[in-house]
Each structure stands twice: as C-alpha cells, then as structure tokens.
C-alpha cells in the first residue's frame, strides 16, 4: 500500500487513505473501517497519572477556591459584627444597623411565615414574565434587525433613542400606561432586560462568519432554515452573554419598581421594612435579593452550558 507509506509520517488523521483505498477496492465494505480514538483529545490527558490523580487534583483546586470564598465572607461578617458591636460612627454610622446574630434570629422567625415566601415567589414570577417576554421579543427582533438591512434602517434609530432611558425612568409612565400595578412592574422588568438581549442578538447575527452562510446555502438551505438552523445557533454565544446581562438589569429594574409602586415582592418587603423600622428585615431583603439574583444568573449559565455543548469543548467561558 503506497498510500499507507505516504501517510505514516503524519500521525494525525491515522489510516484514512488506506481505509479509502480499501473501500475503493471493495465498494460498500464497511467492516474494516475501525479507526482509533482521537489523538486530539487524548493528548490533553496527562500521561501516567490517570483518572484518580485528575480527580484529586480537581478536589484540591476546588477546596482551595471554596476556602478562599468562605474566608472573604467570614471577614465581611466579622467586620460587620465589630462595627455594630462598637457602634462605629465616623461619617458612616452603624448605630442603627442590626447585628449579624439579630438578623439570623429574624431569618429563623421569618422562615416560619408564609408571606416571606410569597414575596419571594411573587418577585420570581415577575422576573420570569418580564424577562421571558424580553427573551422572546429581543431574540426575534434581534434576528430580524441583524439579518435584514431594511429592518435595521427602519427600527434601529428609534430603538437607539429608547435605549438610554433607564428602566426606573419608565416607572411613572408605566403606572399610567398599564391597568394594574402587576402589569406595570412586569413591564418595567421587561424594559430593563429587553435592550441588552436585543443588542447582543443583533451583534451575534451580524458577526456570523459569512462562510457558514455560504456553506449552508450551497447545501440547499433556504432563508427560514438559514435563520433557524445556522444564524440562530451561530449567534447563541452572544445571545447568552446578553441574557446574563439582561438578567442582572431585570433584577435592578424589578426591585426599583417594587419599591416605588409595588405591593408584595421582595423589593417591597425591603422598603416596607424601612418604613416600619424593622431594620433586620432590610438586611434580610438585601440578602434574599442577592441570592435570588445569583440563582437566576446561575440558571442562565446552566441553560447556556446545556444548550451549547460545543462551546464547552473549548473552555466554555463564553456563556
């Protein structure tokens, strides 16, 4: 086999040529086409150490980072404790701030009440609706604006004027526009997350490698298939960046809206605690907002990782 000699010096694409020659000799013979597993991924595994060492490595790395994270949290709470205990009062006043243990007691008490959970659920529902509507409309509009020049010329200038208006500035207008408090809060949450999602989708669509579009068209793809099966997946990494940013802004907008015009919800809870002089509840409200926001961002990252398995292959830091 001359081709086999030819190919020997090249260790990458193993015995492709000989396989091919074999196949040319006897058509439809599929039996002998067993190829060795990829050298590409194999080279990444350290030789000798095996699975066990990788596993222990992973643990030591992650225990280290967990310890560091806990350290910073402990220092934060420690400073808070000391500042309250010694009634720190030098321009910044800790005189009215509840101590960490008081907050803990209050959390235990609140966790036995229903309204506490109701407030959380109501906020989450508002996020889900406002953000959900923003996801669908932002991605659809972003695909259209990114793909079609005429649509871009028609819509983009107007959207660029609306974009710099912060969601909080929409609060009075939203209260006038929408029939219920609930719908105006959802609207404000939507407005906050819509623009980051729209813009990153447009960016994703306009930066799709043109050769991919050509390849798809030369394989017979027409416009609808091109949009759904080529442009959308190609833009997904950018879209998920927009979703992460959008989720952050959605929470900012939601809390502001709840504080100003709300009934129920965790933002309302926090503001109400201030009015009712229940200072521990202010801290609890803030902590809950922090954790809910964190959970929502984590959920988006998870969906991104599941939805874009190919991106994980090269580190997956994009989503």
């Amino acid at each position: 086999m001359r081709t086999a000699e030819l190919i020997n010096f090249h260790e990458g694409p193993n015995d492709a040529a000989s396989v091919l020659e074999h196949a040319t000799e006897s058509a439809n013979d599929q039996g002998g086409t067993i190829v060795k597993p990829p050298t590409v991924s194999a080279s990444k595994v350290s030789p000798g150490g095996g699975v066990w060492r990788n596993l222990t490595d992973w643990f030591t790395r992650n225990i280290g980072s967990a310890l560091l994270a806990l350290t910073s949290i402990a220092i934060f709470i420690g400073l808070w404790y000391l500042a309250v205990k010694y009634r720190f009062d030098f321009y910044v006043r800790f005189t009215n701030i509840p101590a960490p243990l008081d907050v803990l007691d209050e959390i235990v008490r609140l966790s036995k009440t229903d309204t506490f959970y109701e407030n959380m659920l109501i906020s989450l529902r508002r996020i889900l609706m406002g953000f959900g509507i923003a996801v669908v409309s932002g991605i659809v509009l972003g695909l259209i604006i990114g793909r079609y020049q005429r649509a871009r010329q028609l819509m983009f200038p107007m959207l660029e004027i609306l974009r710099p208006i912060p969601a909080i500035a929409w609060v009075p207008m939203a209260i006038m526009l929408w029939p219920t408090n609930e719908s105006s809060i959802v609207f404000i949450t939507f407005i906050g997350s819509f623009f980051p999602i729209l813009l990153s989708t447009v960016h994703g669509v306009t930066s799709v490698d043109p050769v991919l579009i050509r390849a798809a068209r030369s394989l017979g793809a027409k416009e609808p298939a091109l949009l759904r099966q080529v442009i959308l997946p190609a833009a997904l990494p950018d879209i998920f960046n927009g979703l992460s940013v959008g989720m952050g802004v959605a929470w900012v907008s939601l809390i502001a809206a709840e504080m100003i015009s709300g009934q129920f919800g965790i933002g309302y809870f926090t503001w109400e605690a201030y009015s009712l002089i229940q200072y521990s509840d202010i801290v609890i409200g803030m902590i809950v907002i922090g954790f809910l926001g964190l959970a929502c961002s984590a959920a988006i990252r998870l969906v991104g990782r599941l939805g874009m398995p190919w991106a994980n292959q090269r580190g997956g830091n994009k989503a």
Partner: protein
Amino acid sequence: MSAEKGKVEIRNLDVRFGWGANQVEAVSDVNIDIKPGEFVSILGPSGCGKSTLLNVVAGFVKRTSGTVQVDGAEVQGPGAERGMVFQQYSLFPWMTVRKNVEFGLKMQGRPRSEREAAARTLLGLAGLLAFENHYPEQLSGGMKQRVGIVRALATSPQVLLMDEPFGALDAQTRVVMQQILTNMWQRFRLSVLFITHDIDESIFLSDKVYVMTARPGRIKAEIEVPLPRPRVAEMTTSPEFMQLRQQLHELIREESFKAMGGDLKEGMGGFGMEVGPQGVAELI
C-alpha cells in the same frame, strides 16, 4: 453513480464589480469546459479572479455577461447540485461531525434514518467514523477539511467546486489530502472544479489545468495532464510531471509578476534598476 452528469460549460464569462470609474474587471471572457467526471483545475496568481470565477459557478456572485451551465441548466443561485468546499473551515461549530454531513440531506427533507446511514457511510470512507460525535473544534485542520469534502458530497452533487481547499494546511497534510481527494473522486466519478495557486497540486490532481492571467482574469492556457490514473506520490518525480511543472511554472511566473508589477517596479527603481516597457518580467 454514473459519469453522465456533471458537464459544466462556461461561455464568454465577464464579471465586473462596482460602477463607473471605480469599476473593476475581475473576470474577462472566460471559456471553460468540464466533461462529466473530469477533474479540472484553475491555476493562477493570487488576486487573479479565480475565486470569483468559482463563486459565479457556485451561484454566490452574479455574472455581468456570458453563460454558466451545469448539465444544460443555467446557474441561477447556490444549490446542492453544486457541492462547495471552502478554503476556510466552514463546518458548523454547533453541530457534531455527523450532523454537519447530514445538513444537506436535512435541507432536502430526507428522513433521519436515511441521513444517518448516508453520513456514516461517507464518514467511514473518509476514515472519520470514529469522530462522528465530535465537534469540529476537536478536529485537526486536515480532518476538518475532510469533513467539509464529505459534507459537500453527501447530497450527491453533479460537480464539486473547491476553492483552494488545502491552502490552510501544512505541506505534509496537504499531500495526504490530495491523495485522499483523488481516491474519493475516482470512487464517486463526479466532476471537480478545483481552484489553486499550487502548480504541483494542480498537476497531481487534474485531467486538465487552465492557467489564468493576472487581473482581469482571462484564460491564458489550457494544459492537458496525460499522467495515468490512479495518481500516486511517485509520479511527482517522473519526467512527464517535471516537464508539466516547468511549463506551468513559466506560464505562472509571468502572471505573478504582472499581478504585483506596480509595487515591484517602484521597489526595484529604488535600487537603481532600469525597468523597460515590459515591466519587471524582463529583469528576471
């Protein structure tokens, strides 16, 4: 697959870009014939419009005048009956290797089981079956380009259009890929229009080589390659091969200098050299 399809006729093709004073003539009065099952290369210096020519046949670029017919049908736009292999890697990164190969069949509305079977057969032939569930990012350059070829073949095109497909590969991989391509081509018996600036590559692969001039691209020469099939690496040192290489080299060298003549003339003038009316070619 029979060799009755895959006839390409290009008649008096002109391609111009832009309007008025800014108009650029990319391709001028090109006539090319590809017989069914023939492997034809277009060889030319960079920037001579050979990729433009291929893109016209692929249906991506509109011709200014002339006709391009594949099996008697005028080319109107891109289509799966003309498979395309690009110079850059053009695999869909979000699809596994097998899904990439299935894409054309999916666009034709073929059922999943049929697509899978076809893709796996083709991947087996290219020695890539073990990688069917890998993502393109995990493959080497040569493997990616093999998947690209297999993907273009999946829809059983009449003609395969290849735009310097091995240009981005290292020299060793390129030699292997050329061997794989001739084997594939012999098996599938389809026509190939292959763009390259590599003289050896064009001789090794082709039945016929068209040499293009510097911009605007015209056909300067049409050289038949009488080497027997199947082609093997040893042939590259045979006297016939050497002679063809010499012939093509002379044809191309002139055009390469013409292609960058303006810059070269200025540069050489700076060294106190005299350049006559024929340009730098006479200095060499």
